[in-house]
Structure formats: structure tokens, C-alpha cells
């Protein structure tokens, strides 16, 4: 007998569609879900976000003791998958010996040898790694009694209204809980407190996947001595940190270079860095803790601004964006009784007169006063068809909350330290009834940016890290921007391309919702236009810089060609002098003079070189003078900077003067 599947079961079985493909990606997705929840929570109460993420590596023995399992030594070695047979061992030893021999040979020859890769530790299938992920924020927190259901029950179906949201699946921490249940069986721990609550809610629970209900271990109120508000979520999952490497193009912040190679390519760190770019008003503290101290990492992504984008507001559906199913649901949920009111109140951009015209167009069996709940299936299809074909005003972008040009710019400067940066914010545009805004930034140079294009993609203010090949931003930057036009060298320069798209519905492609398709011409056009605008800004800066450099290098560049030119001229003169001497040819009076001097070594290559050098110096001097008078003293435009506020506890000493106070922080 087949029983109906609960939503939790569905996601447990299809965890890949929520970004839980393999242990490495599970850890990554868990972190991002928690971080994005934390940001949403803080922003919803207009609090500048402070987010702390800790990933603690748990070795197998420790994990076993956590779940009360006794570590057992292997007795029957041959039972295991990674058992090395005598033959395999012989083969491996022979290979290692050969490698050693080669190395010795090279060393003897004085060749510089690459450090040969250390033999990989044999790792069997069962050798899983476990991590405790903790995320703490200063957000809204959760009402004490709602906590179990917020984590332990997976609801299907989308929300009623329409809103720009960070989350891609609306599952958040629930999916992490399902994964922890599947991989470790350990419960999730939640601490939460809301503003002006004098207690902290603590809850330890796991989920009954089959029945889709929370299974509460502990739910209690504790003291809130620090008047803290926010949430702290802790979950233990199987994951993979070391081998989860990226083949991506994004370079790394300088601070990380000091850490061991191990961390150099972690996707999670890329994510944190890009999040810091797009959310410069948040402060992130990232910690990785393990048993071996050399692997430990602590990074603080500091706040650079206190300007926060507004919270996105919920909006009603645009008539050209709805499908039949959605119309049916809106009808079921509406509080309005007749068709006229329904059209006016449940959709944007339908006014009274338009609603009347629409109903008139629907046909004779429709009337403004008819009960909306009595509409037949056929009638609903008719409404849908009309919605598709009729002309409506575009939805406004007011409900969107873009990162903002200022914040994007700050984020880029803060994390990349580029030589030049330009940003642009487009106006709201529409795709299938959903408004979207494209913002872009293009940077040149910077620390730890690789040569060529470095692409940073953001959708609804979260970074996209996977499947960048097919993405509209990648393809536009690679194929549709002629970088040469803007004096940018696509392969040599360190180009950072940042594109942030916000919308009430991001048209993601792929199961993991990791990229935006290239087939939507509205978005492709807007992306191209935004990047182009940045390039145009950069071009004038680059041209100025090139002119300045040309000034400096003119003399050298001209002088470089003097020998070639002088030699070529002299070679011809010498041949002519020869034929003149042998009376093969006759020349004019003034030319004869030169040819004779050449024949008598009075004019040599050196003479020509000297004369040319003199001329070049003269020209250089004149042009430098001209440049100086034309360009004058130029100033770079000033940029606002954000000074981090000092902790109130700091000790300082004031020096008072009549016009100012000078404060010395101790």
C-alpha cells in the first residue's frame, strides 16, 4: 500500500533540489541558509546585522562519544573496503620508489623540483567528517511557543503575497535539520530572545520526518542577563571541509593567504567574502575550529557603512504574471466577494475603470457583481487568457530592495581594494509581470584578483557561486561586452564584474537554483546595459591614466626606436655613397654633400642617432609643458568614508582648543 508522503519526507528524499547534493555542499548550504536567515531577521527590525558563524570539526571518536558509541578497533582488516592487498601494496611501493629515484636524480642535477604531492591518505567510504555549525545573530528572535513548529514542520506551498526574499526555497534551517537527522541523528539547538523579553527561549528538538512534526527534547525559558535579542542555532551535520575545493575564478582576500593551503579554496569562505561585498552594513565573524590548531581560522568581515537598504515590502501579483493555479488560490483566499472587487484588490495595476473594461471584454457570462467564488473552471481559464493578452502598466520597482549603488561600491572597495571602480544602478524593469532591478560594478586591479574576468553574481542580495558557466552575467561579460572599446584588456587586466539582480521572482535555472538563464532577453539586455555604463565611467578614468603614463614614458618609448630608424636610413645612405663614389649615379648638389660626408665617415650611424635623440628630447620637453598647462592640477573625486564608531568603554583624553576638540583614544 502506498501512503502519502509528508513534505519533510519529500525533501529528505530529494535533498539535492534544496542544495544538499553531497557532504561538501551540505555544509555549504547549511551555512548559507543560517546566514541568510540571520540577515533577514536583523533587517526585519532595522538592526545593523552582526552575525557569528562557527564551524567546529568533530573527529569520529569525539562524535562517537557524543552519541554514546564506543570506538572499536578494526579486527578483521580484510573486511574493509580500503584494505590494501599485497599486490596493490607492491605496486604502490614500486611507484613510490620510482618517484623517489627520479627526485634524487633531479636533485643531483641541481634541478629545482616541485614538491611532490604527499601520498594521499587512503580514505574509505565510511570515513565521514562531522561538523557543529553555530550561527548567532542580533535579529528579531522568535516567539517562545512558535519555535518548535518553525523548525520541526516543513510546509509546502508558497506564500500568499509576493516579496523579494533571500531564501531560494523557503526551507531555511528546516532542511539543515532534516540533513542532521539523516546524517548524524543529533537534534538541533535553538536559543532565541525577542526585544524586551527578559528570558531566553531554549529549545532542543529534532523532526519526525514521517509525520512531519517536531520532536521536542527540551523547551524551556532561561535567564537573559545581557538583554540579548536574536537567535542562535546549532546543528551537527556530516560535511566536508578540506576537499571541498573550488575550481572557480574568484580570488581570495589577502588575510587568508596567511593561512594554510587547506583553506585556500573553500567555497564557504568565498561565500562569506562575497556576502561581505553585497552586505557591507553587516558584520560577520567567521570561525573554523578543529583539533589541529594550524587548521583554525578566524576572519572578521568588518562593517563599513550604517546605510541599510529598506526592507522589501510585500506586493500583490501583477496580472500578467499569474497562472491558472494561482488565480484559483487567490479566489479561494480572497476576502472580496464579487469579481469587480477581486480584480481591483488582489492585483496591482488594475484600477476601477480597467477592471470594468476587463470584465466587459471577458464576455457576456461575466458581470462586475458576480460572486467571485462561483467562477467555473472555464471562466477562470478565460480570465487567465485575457490577463496574458491585455496590456497592463508595468509593476513598479518600489517593492524591491536593491543593494544600492553606494553599498555595492563600498563592498567592492572593502573586500577587493581595487585601483578603480565604477558602479551603476539601473531603473526597474519587468519580466513576465515581475519587476527587477540590475545593479552592476566593474573594478580594475585589486588584491588577490586574478588576471582576466572575475565574476561576482548576486541574486536578491545573496551570492551565487555554482554553475556560473551558463549564467546570464558570465555570458554577457564574456561574449557581449567588447572590453577593448573601454581600453580594458580582457585577458591581462584584473577585471572584477559585480552584478546584483533583485526581483520578486528570480528566474533561476537548474535544480540547485544556482544561476540565471541567458535566454531572458529583458534581463540580458539590462545586465549588458549596466555593465556598459560602468565601463563608460571607467574608460574616461583609464584614458586619463594612460595619458599620464604616456607623458612619463614618451621619451623612453620614442628613444627605443632611434637605433632601428637610424640604422635603416644609414644603410641606404651607405649604399648610395658607394654608388656615388663609383660614379654609377649622379645626385643633386646638396645631396652630394651628404653622400661625401657619409663616405668620409663624417656622417655615421652615431651622427643620425644623436640628432634623433636631440630631437626627441626637445619634443618631449615641449609636450610635457603643453600637457602640464592643459591638464593643470587635477584632483581625484573624493569619496565618503565610514568611520567605525568606538566602543563607549574606550578611554580617551580631550584636548580642547577654541575651535575644535582633539580626542586621543587610549
Amino acid at each position, binding site marked *: 500500500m502506498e501512503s502519502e508522503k509528508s513534505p519533510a519526507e519529500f525533501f529528505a528524499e530529494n535533498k539535492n533540489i534544496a542544495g544538499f547534493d553531497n557532504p561538501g555542499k551540505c555544509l555549504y548550504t547549511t551555512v548559507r541558509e543560517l546566514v541568510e536567515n540571520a540577515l533577514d531577521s536583523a533587517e526585519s527590525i532595522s538592526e545593523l546585522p552582526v552575525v557569528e558563524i562557527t564551524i567546529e570539526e568533530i573527529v569520529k571518536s569525539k562524535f562517537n562519544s557524543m552519541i554514546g558509541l564506543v570506538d572499536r578497533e578494526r579486527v578483521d582488516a580484510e573486511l574493509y573496503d580500503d584494505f590494501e592487498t599485497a599486490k596493490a601494496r607492491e605496486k604502490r611501493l614500486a611507484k613510490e620508489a620510482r618517484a623517489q629515484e627520479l627526485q634524487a636524480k633531479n636533485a643531483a642535477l641541481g634541478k629545482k623540483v616541485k614538491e611532490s604531492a604527499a601520498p594521499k591518505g587512503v580514505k574509505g567510504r565510511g570515513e565521514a567528517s562531522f561538523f557543529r555549525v553555530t550561527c548567532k545573530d542580533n535579529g528579531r528572535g522568535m516567539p517562545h511557543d512558535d519555535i518548535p513548529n518553525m523548525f520541526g514542520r516543513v510546509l509546502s506551498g508558497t506564500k500568499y503575497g509576493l516579496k523579494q526574499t533571500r531564501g531560494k526555497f523557503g526551507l531555511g534551517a528546516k532542511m539543515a535539520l532534516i540533513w542532521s537527522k539523516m546524517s548524524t541523528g543529533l537534534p538541533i539547538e535553538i536559543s532565541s530572545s525577542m526585544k524586551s523579553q527578559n528570558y531566553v527561549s531554549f529549545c532542543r528538538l529534532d523532526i519526525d520526518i514521517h509525520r512531519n512534526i517536531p520532536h521536542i527534547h527540551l523547551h524551556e525559558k532561561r535567564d537573559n542577563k545581557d538583554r540579548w535579542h536574536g537567535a542562535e542555532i546549532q546543528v551537527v551535520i556530516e560535511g566536508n571541509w578540506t576537499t571541498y575545493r573550488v575550481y572557480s575564478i574568484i580570488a581570495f582576500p589577502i588575510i587568508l593567504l596567511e593561512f594554510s593551503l587547506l583553506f585556500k579554496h573553500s567555497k564557504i569562505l568565498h561565500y562569506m567574502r562575497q556576502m561581505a561585498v553585497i552586505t557591507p552594513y553587516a558584520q560577520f565573524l567567521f570561525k573554523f575550529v578543529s583539533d589541529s590548531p594550524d587548521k583554525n581560522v578566524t576572519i572578521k568581515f568588518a562593517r563599513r557603512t550604517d546605510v541599510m537598504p529598506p526592507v522589501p515590502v510585500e506586493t500583490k501579483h501583477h496580472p500578467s504574471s499569474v497562472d491558472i493555479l494561482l488565480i484559483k488560490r487567490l479566489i479561494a483566499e480572497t476576502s472580496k466577494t464579487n469579481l469587480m472587487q477581486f480584480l481591483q484588490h488582489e492585483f496591482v495595476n488594475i484600477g476601477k475603470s480597467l477592471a470594468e473594461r476587463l470584465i466587459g471584454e471577458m464576455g457576456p457570462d461575466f458581470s462586475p457583481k458576480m460572486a467571485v467564488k462561483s467562477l467555473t473552471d472555464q471562466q477562470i481559464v478565460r480570465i487567465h487568457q485575457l490577463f496574458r493578452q491585455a496590456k497592463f502598466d508595468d509593476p513598479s520597482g518600489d517593492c524591491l530592495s536593491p543593494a544600492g549603488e553606494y553599498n555595492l561600491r563600498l563592498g567592492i572597495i572593502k573586500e577587493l581594494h581595487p585601483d578603480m571602480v565604477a558602479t551603476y544602478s539601473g531603473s526597474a524593469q519587468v519580466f513576465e509581470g515581475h519587476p527587477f532591478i540590475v545593479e552592476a560594478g566593474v573594478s580594475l586591479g585589486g588584491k588577490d584578483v586574478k588576471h582576466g574576468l572575475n565574476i561576482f553574481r548576486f541574486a536578491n542580495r545573496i551570492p551565487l557561486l555554482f554553475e556560473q558557466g551558463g549564467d546570464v552575467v558570465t555570458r554577457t561579460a564574456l561574449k557581449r561586452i567588447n572590453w577593448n572599446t573601454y581600453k580594458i584588456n580582457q585577458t591581462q587586466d584584473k577585471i572584477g564584474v559585480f552584478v546584483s539582480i533583485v526581483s520578486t521572482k528570480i528566474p533561476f535555472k537548474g535544480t540547485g537554483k544556482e544561476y540565471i538563464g541567458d535566454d531572458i532577453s529583458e534581463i540580458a539586455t539590462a545586465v549588458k546595459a549596466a555593465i556598459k555604463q560602468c565601463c563608460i565611467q571607467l574608460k574616461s578614468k583609464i584614458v586619463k591614466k594612460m595619458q599620464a603614463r604616456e607623458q612619463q614614458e*614618451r621619451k623612453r618609448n620614442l628613444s627605443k*626606436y632611434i637605433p632601428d630608424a637610424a640604422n635603416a636610413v644609414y644603410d*641606404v645612405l651607405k*649604399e*648610395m655613397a658607394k654608388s656615388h663614389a663609383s660614379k654609377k649615379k649622379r645626385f643633386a648638389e646638396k645631396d652630394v654633400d651628404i653622400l661625401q660626408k657619409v663616405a668620409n665617415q663624417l656622417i655615421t650611424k652615431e651622427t643620425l642617432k644623436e640628432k634623433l635623440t636631440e*630631437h626627441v628630447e626637445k619634443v618631449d620637453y615641449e609636450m610635457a609643458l603643453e600637457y602640464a598647462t592643459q591638464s593643470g592640477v587635477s584632483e581625484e573625486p573624493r569619496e565618503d568614508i565610514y568611520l567605525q564608531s568606538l566602543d563607549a568603554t574606550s578611554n580617551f583624553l580631550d584636548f580642547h582648543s577654541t575651535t575644535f576638540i582633539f580626542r586621543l583614544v587610549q
Partner: protein
Amino acid sequence: MADKKKRRRTDSDSDSQPFKHLLKSDEQILQMLKSFSSSFASSSTSKPLTLADLSLASTCREVSDLPLSSVQSNIESLVLQLAHQILSGQGFSFTVPSRASTNQLYVPELDRIVLKDKSTIRPFSHISSVRKTTITTKILSLIHQLSLKNIHVTKRDLFYTDVKLFQDQMQSDAVLDDVSCMLGCTRSSLNVIAAEKGVVVGRLIFSDNGDMIDCTKMGMGGKAIPPNIDRVGDMQSDALFILLVEKDAAYIRLAEDRFYNRFPCIIVTAKGQPDVATRLFLKKMKIELKLPVLALVDSDPYGLKILSVYGCGSKNMSYDSANLTTPDIKWLGIRPSDLDKYKIPEQCRLPMTEQDIKTGKDLLEEDFVKKNPAWVEELNLMVKTKQKAEIQALSSFGFQYLSEVYLPLKLQQQDWI
């Protein structure tokens, strides 16, 4: 004879070759071609117009073949000028005729592109021109050496004399054309030749450096067109027309089938964009043998572009268009209208890319296309249907369809424009 028998046999199973039934006997076609060819020969005796005839000589620039001694003395007087300038401490500069597209003019009376008289100054002491000026000086000195020793070198040889300075061959090649313009002589007069590219096969006998060549006895590949035209002479032929083929593949087909024995003709190809030697050779054949030229190119904008290079010249070498162009080339095929006329199946047609369509539209603006209303019509059809096809599309009816049905039928119907 064995060859002929074979052909007869393939004739019998002609169901898969549409339009074959329309073909008249070879004798009838030949008769018709002969009358066309002789009427052409009598009509083309008039002397070609020159710039001077149109009183454009002062506003347009044209080069001529110069003897080596004049090239040498031109270079010498130029270098002496440079020496004077340098010694007086003024640096030096060249005055180079501009070969930019704004300085080109299509003269309908001549049916070719000519160069207008605008020049640019190329001073040594300017950062944007110092490189080109130095390269120009170097090339001048190299040509001077060639003229002293009276030898020929290839463009590649020239480039390899100073790879460090020239960086890539495009640069030395471009400056070589500038030098031709400056000295007022053709590129062949500079004793610099391009590597052999074009080939010719068919009813043609000519002397190459004194050796008599019979192009019917050159095997399948034909005779490579000599890079310097001045060693070619004594052309004789009993051909009725010259068949200009865009691509190697079609050329090989026609050569192997010995198409020129069925319909006496000379088959030429430059394997794509024509080089100077092939263009000179075609021109020489046309003038000396007084034969009509029929072109077989792909049905795409580039096919027409190649046709136009043979016909009216390229912008890059417009300064020598008088010597390089062969006027009155007939567009035989494959024309856009042939796609439907010959029922070329859909799977052999290709959709035009955006770039193709743009090139097609640009061509429609060109004067040399506009002057021929039939061409405009064909090109309009191409841009409208957004379809292109290569000569090889005909192979869908059998590899020999081109030589056995398509071309004979075209000739029979005198279907050229």
C-alpha cells in the same frame, strides 16, 4: 575513352539528379557558348577607361608598374630627404597616402574602387606613429637592398629580417602596401611577392619563366599561379570562357571530372580570398584571351564579397585597382535564387548568422552591388530568406551533380548576371 564510357553509364541512372532531363546535348550547348564567346570577344576590344579619361587623375591616386631602377631612385631621393631632415635636428616624417575606407572611392565608369588623394603625416617623434615610421624606414631600406641585388623575396622573408621590430607579419605587410603607395609603384615592382596560392587548370598554354606550360597536362591539381606575373607570357587558349571558382573543393571536383574537356574552359581558384598573383593572372588572361569570366561562388555574403574583390578590387589595395581588377565578371552561381530553383534540400542550407546578415546588408549599400540591379535582387533575397548555402550543397544530389548537371544547365540557359 574509358573516362567517357564511365560517364555515359552514370548518366543512365539519373533519377536522383533533378533537372537532368532539361539538359540538351553537349553539342547544342557548345554551339551556343561559341556564339556567346565570339560576341563577347568582339565587344570587349574597346580600350579600358583610365582615371585621366575621366579627369580624375588629380584627385585620385593610382600606381603603375615601375622598373626596378626607378624604384631604387625613388627610395634614394626619399631617404636623402629624411637625412636632410634628421641632420637639421627636426626629426623626420613620411607623408603616406591614406588607405582608410573614407579615402576610397568607387568610380562607376571604371567599375572599380580607387584611392582618393588624402595623405597622413607619419612623424617619428609622435608616440602613436613612432612604431609605424620606424617600420616604414626599415622596409624602405630592405626594398632598396632588393633593388640593388635585383632579387625577389616573399612577404614572409621580409618579415623574418627583423621579427623583433615587426612583431607580426600583418604589420610588415601593411607597411609594404603603404610603401607601394608612397613610391607610386605596384607591389610587384617592389620585388616582393606573396607565396603561391592560386591554381589554374584547363585549356590554357602559357610560358612561365620561359618554360611552356600546358594546363591540360598538369594532373588533377593544376598549375600553381606564378607569384610574379612578369614572368608569365605567351598565353594561348581554345577555351570559350574562364570559370572562376571560390573554393578548393569545387575546383578539385571540376578538375578531376575534366570539366574543361567537355566544355572548353579555364578553371581558376584562389582558394578563398584572392591574392594579388591570382588577380593579376585573371586580368592578364581576360585581356589577352578576350574571354568572358563566369564566377562560381558560395551563396553567402562572403561569396559575393570575393566576387567583388576580383571585380572592383579590395579597399586595402585600391591604389593598384587598375592592374588588379577584372571588370565584367558574371555571377553564374550559386545564387540565392538557385536554392529554390534547384530544390536544394533544407538540410543543406544554413541559417545566416547575425554577422552574415549584417555583412549582407552592408553589401547592399556598396556601389558595386547597386550598379547591377540583378545582384541587388539576389542579395535582397538572401537577406530576406536568411539562408545561405555552399557550393557543396549540390553534392546532396551526388558528388558529380555540380559538373554533370548544374553547370551544364546553367551554361545552356545562359543563367548568369
